[in-house]
Structures are given as C-alpha cells and as structure tokens.
C-alpha cells in the first residue's frame, strides 16, 4: 500500500464516480466537516493510524480541497505503537501537508501524572493525555471515527456529542438531532465530539476504501510475522514486551483488524492481502451462523478491542 502522492482523487477509481450509497455517506461526512469548520474555533481530528481515523483524514482532505485541512491531527501515542503505524502516520502527514500534535503517554508516565498498569497495557492510559491535550490546546471540536453500527450501546450516539469540562458524556444533556441541522453550541471548557462516520457500517468503510484507494498501514493486510498465543489472541513482540515463559513463538500469516497498543492488539490468521479480499472476509464473518468456530471467537475479540479503543475515541 502506498500513499497517493498528491490529491485524494489521484487514483482512477475516483473517476468512476462512486455508487449512490457511499456517495451519500461521503456527502454527509463532508457536510459535517464543513459545519464544524464553520462553527468552531479550534477543531482537531483524533488520529490513531487505524482505518477509521485514516478515512476521517481522507474525507477532511476532500471536504476542503484544494485548500489544506484547516485543523490539525491529534495522536495520543501510547509508546506501544507498531512501527508500521508510526511510519504510515508520518508519511500521510508529510504528503498531505497536515499538522500533527502528538501527546506521548511516556511524558505522563515520566512525570508521574500516570502510572504504568500492572498488566503493562496502555490503551486505558490514553484518556488523561487526551483530555489534557484538549484542554491545553483549547480544542473545542474533536473528530472521532466512531460508528453507530459498532455495538448496540453506540446506536444512540449523536453526530455532535457534547462533553462536559471533564470530557464526560452526559446522557441527559445530549440533544435531539434534527434534519441535518447540527447544534454545536457549548460553554467554555466544554467540547463537542464529532462523528462524521456515524452512519457508515464496517462494510461501507471497506467498500469506500477500495473504491477510493484510501491508503492504510500494511498491518491491515496479510503478512508473515512471529506470533505467540495469549488469552486467545495472537500477539507479537515489540517495545511492549515479548512472549512469557511457555508461550511458544511461531511464524504465521496474519493481519490486524484494528491497530492499537501492541501489548493487547491481536492479529488474526488471514490470507487476505488486498482490500477486496478483506471485504470478502468481513462479509463472510457476518454470515457465520450458529455454532461459532474458534475463528468467530477471535472476530468477536477483535470487535471488543475496537470497542475499547472507541472508549478512548
């Protein structure tokens, strides 16, 4: 996978005008980006290097084309990132002239604002650096890649979701969302989380990635790597540590369904090496009926990971 050198429309795929449903979703997302740019002073895109946040950046580029994206990206770096993801991030930022703010969890650990967890996992540690960064930079609108199809609890999330000055979501203060008239008003210290992909499904995301040629980190596609099994997941060695005694390392052909903290992000065995093959795999996982196989358990674990990440988003 390479990044298109210039415009998001660089590929031939974009010429064949997207099919109506993806186009409607794209138009809706672009509308949301422009509303935020028009009504907020300091928006920011939360960027993890994952497919949903990469899609957000892609849509932001299209929303303001040919002008540069009028707000920065914010990456909360756990220090447990896959090197492929960081490299992808830096290339994306460089090639599209984006601005990047990085909040490094290491800094919070170094000065004692955060302490390492006994299990060494850093996903849950992202919240404090995120909220501190929002306060420090006075970000008033924070774009996230959350989608309403991810789980039942998210089905009621708004496109514009008001957060209080502690960054918390208060069910009672969520506003009815009428027509496409979004209400972004907030008090000083509050901010609004904005989810332009609310109405996309997992398959919509992949279909759009395929159609537009959206670049993704190579982790999303089948590759060979050394893995070991822990808690039913296939983990890999990295700055976050390696196998414990008795955890056997083997070579396997795997891909990742989500990117996050390497200490707890599992790979799945897969030979899907192109976007189309990934789409087939995602579509097949929906068709699986009763009597779940081991593979389904892994899929559901991947879904759980998505959710954990979305807590951060």
């Amino acid at each position, binding site marked *: 996978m390479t990044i298109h050198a210039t415009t998001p429309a660089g590929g031939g795929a974009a010429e064949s005008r997207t099919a109506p449903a993806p186009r409607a979703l794209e138009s809706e997302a672009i509308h949301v980006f422009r509303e935020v740019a*028009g009504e907020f002073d300091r928006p920011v895109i939360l960027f993890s290097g994952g497919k949903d946040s990469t899609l957000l950046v892609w849509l932001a580029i299209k929303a303001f084309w040919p002008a540069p994206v009028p707000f920065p990206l914010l990456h909360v770096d756990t220090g447990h990132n896959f090197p492929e993801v960081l490299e992808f991030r830096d290339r994306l930022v460089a090639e599209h002239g984006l601005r990047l703010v990085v909040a490094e969890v290491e800094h919070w650990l170094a000065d004692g604002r955060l302490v390492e967890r006994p299990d060494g996992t850093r996903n849950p540690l992202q919240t404090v650096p995120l909220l501190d960064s929002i306060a420090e930079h006075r970000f008033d609108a924070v774009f996230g890649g959350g989608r309403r199809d991810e789980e039942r609890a998210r089905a009621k999330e708004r496109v514009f979701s008001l957060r209080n000055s502690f960054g918390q979501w208060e069910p009672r203060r969520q506003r009815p969302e009428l027509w496409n008239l979004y209400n972004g008003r907030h008090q000083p210290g509050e901010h609004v989380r904005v989810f332009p992909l609310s109405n996309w499904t997992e398959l919509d995301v992949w279909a759009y990635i395929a159609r537009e040629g959206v670049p993704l980190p190579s982790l999303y596609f089948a590759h060979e790597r050394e893995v070991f099994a822990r808690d039913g997941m296939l983990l890999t060695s990295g700055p976050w540590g390696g196998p414990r005694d008795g955890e056997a390392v083997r070579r396997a052909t795997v891909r990742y369904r989500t990117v996050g903290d390497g200490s707890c992000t599992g790979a799945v065995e897969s030979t899907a090496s192109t976007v189309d093959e990934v789409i087939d795999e995602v579509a097949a996982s929906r068709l699986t009926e009763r009597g779940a196989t081991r593979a389904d358990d892994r899929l559901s674990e991947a879904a759980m990971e998505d959710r954990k990440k979305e807590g951060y988003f």
Partner: protein
Amino acid sequence: MGQLLRLATAGSVDDGKSTLVGRLLYDTKSVLADQLDAVHRASVDRGLATPDLSLLVDGLRSEREQGITIDVAYRYFATPRRSFVLADTPGHVQYTRNTVTGASTAQLAVLLVDARKGVVEQTRRHAAVLALLGVPRLVLAVNKIDLVDYHEQTFVLIAKDFTAHAAALGYQDADVLSVPVSALVGDNVVDRSDRTPWYQGPTLLEHLETVPAEEERPNAPFRFPVQYVIRPRTPEHPDYRGYAGQVAAGSVAAGDEVLVLPGGQRCRVDRVHTADGDVPRAVAGESVTVLLSEDVDIARGDLFAAVDRPPRLTDELDATVCWLADQPLRPGARVLVKHGTRTVHALVADLLARFDEQRLESTADPDSVRLNEIARVRVRTARPLAVDDYRACRRTGAFLVMDPVDGSTLAAGLVGSPLPLPGHARPAGRGEPVDGVGSS
C-alpha cells in the same frame, strides 16, 4: 451496493417493533456473528425454541427500568439492492421528541400496529407527527397477523381505517402501503408468506427495496446554504474562491444564474467542483463547492437560490414548533434560530395555537407550550432569513430553536403550518412578512 434509503419506525410498546427490526437485520444478514451468537445463547437460556430477535436491538427495556432517557437508536442493514439507515424511534414516553427526530430525515416510515388491536390512539398521533415532518411515504405493518389466524377481513379493516386517517393528513393512496406481517414468524417481512394467499402486495422488504428513494421533489428550485468559503491561497491555487455546501434542493450546473441571499446579487456559476474534479451537475444531497464568475462578498450563512423561484426573505416567521425541552415555551421567549447555515437571535412573539395531533384540532392562544407539544407560533428574527414553506422544501423550511444561554436544543421548527388544521382561523398577521428580495 445500491442507493441509500433512510427510514424511521414507530409503534406502541409491545406491538413488536424490536422483533420486526431484529428480523430485518437477521434476515438481511446484517448482524455480526458474535452478536448473533449472544442472542442464540440468551434465547436458549430462556428456554425459547426460536431465537428472540428482539434481543438484537433491545436495550430499551433495560433503559426503561433504569430510567435512562429513551432515545432514537440507529440501525443499519443492506441488501444487494439498497442500504438502509433505520431510525428506531421508541413509542411511549417522549414519543414526540423521538418521532420528530427520527422523522426529520426519513424518506419513509414504518408504523406498527398489533393486528388484534388495530389502529389505536398512538398510531394516529405517530402518523400525524410523521405527516407534520413531511415524511413522504408510510407503511403500516399490521403485525402479529399469526395471532388473528391470518384473517383477511381483520387486515382489510385495519388497512382501511389507517388509509382514511392518512388521507386526512394529506397522504395520497399511492404513498401508503399496508402489509400483513408476523415479525415473530417472519411472514411477509422478507419472504412472502403462503399463509396470506389473499395478500397480493409486496413483502415489507420488497417494498423498502423498490420504493422511490430519490429526493422528494425532482423539480424543486435550487437551494444551497453556504457552509464555508474555501480559499487555499497556495501557489497552485492563488485565486481559487469556492463556496462549499450541500445542495439542499434542486440542482446546479455551470452556467446557471443564482441569486445570493440575503444580499440579492445575481451571479453566474462558473464551476461546480469537488475533490474528484468538476461535476456537470450537482443534485440535492451532494456536497460540492460552487465557484462563481463574479467576485462578490459571500460568507457562511448566505444562501444560493434559483433566480426564477426564490425563497421568501423575511424577519417574521409564521411557523410550527415541536417543543422538545422540559421548560415550557411562553410568549416573549428569547431564543436562537438556526436555519440552514445561519444562526440568528429571535423572539417568539406569539403563541397562536396549540395543536392536538390526536383529533387534528387546535386550541387558539395557549399561554404555554410544553414538552412534546406542537404549536403554531410567530417568531421575529433579528436578521432576515431566506425561507421556504416546509411543505415546499424540508431543508430550507426547517429550523432549530436553541437556548441562547446554555445552547440546548429547545424545539424543531417548521416554516408555515404543515398540517391541515380544520376549524382554526388564521389570526390576522401583525404586519405581513417581508416578501421578495432586496426589501430587507
């Protein structure tokens, strides 16, 4: 993947809405394996012979018990022909708030009734709210048809009753379909049932897949609220100046003449641009960037409109509001109005009538309007807005009413009086709206 259809569902508690939505998700295979598995396990635990599909979308029941706000939930399913965004609007508590929210974007609504009960008070209310919000098409799902032994006459009477009510609300026969279904067993939801040989119409899903999904009015005059001005000022694009927005109604092409409101200038469209290049024509719902041949001072909040059929430029709105806030509305309330991309200060000058959507009657001069009530009001805005009647254009006839202090959303506003109000005389206006262009 085909077109996108946005629909809403409404029904009273226990009519089987969760089961029906669950069945649509299940039969279109739009459920993830892990969710499905959880439902199968829970159903077995409860000793059920068949999976309880309502568990796929449930959550409402527990919410009700926990006293959490009962809210619209969005569901997604797709067939090879179409993708569907379904706004699942719970009945019961706060039904107006939920139905208004779900209906505001819906191209079609599915109303449920229990075949044993037929059309009940809440069915009429829901239908009235759907009509008010301008949902173009209705489907009545006569559910639990298995519990009336698939009796044709029962269905026919309910369908007749509902069609008459819908007609009173302004629906043509062609825009209303009644389907006998059993959400539990699956009759006529996705697959045609052989237990209703007397029913010749499409199954629910067949109808959803084939009902026209394009914008309601293909010949509507062009409307385009300017969201954002794109000025790159980069070496490659030193002079680019584009007006970004989503086409609200009608269409636009290079060479068209447009009227800029509220300024009143006439301009020629030079290009209709997107990140994928110029497009020959942009239609309602598409996000594009419009470049003009002339250099004029245009900002967010302005509206481009068809020259021959412009909207009304006015600072006084005769409007209908669905009140969604706990604190009641009283005459003289100071509010913010967001219309298109423009937000202005406003005063609710008069409460003209409160509308009883059950009996399709109204009470004149109420002293307040409470949560979930619908009323006709007169609003004065600090600056003129370019509006259409809601019936003529949903996008430019709609507005939000917001609290100027805490920013909360108080009401859904609709320009004009979208429902027929028999027996209610319009009170004489205090000064007619400022009509036309350039009179501001």
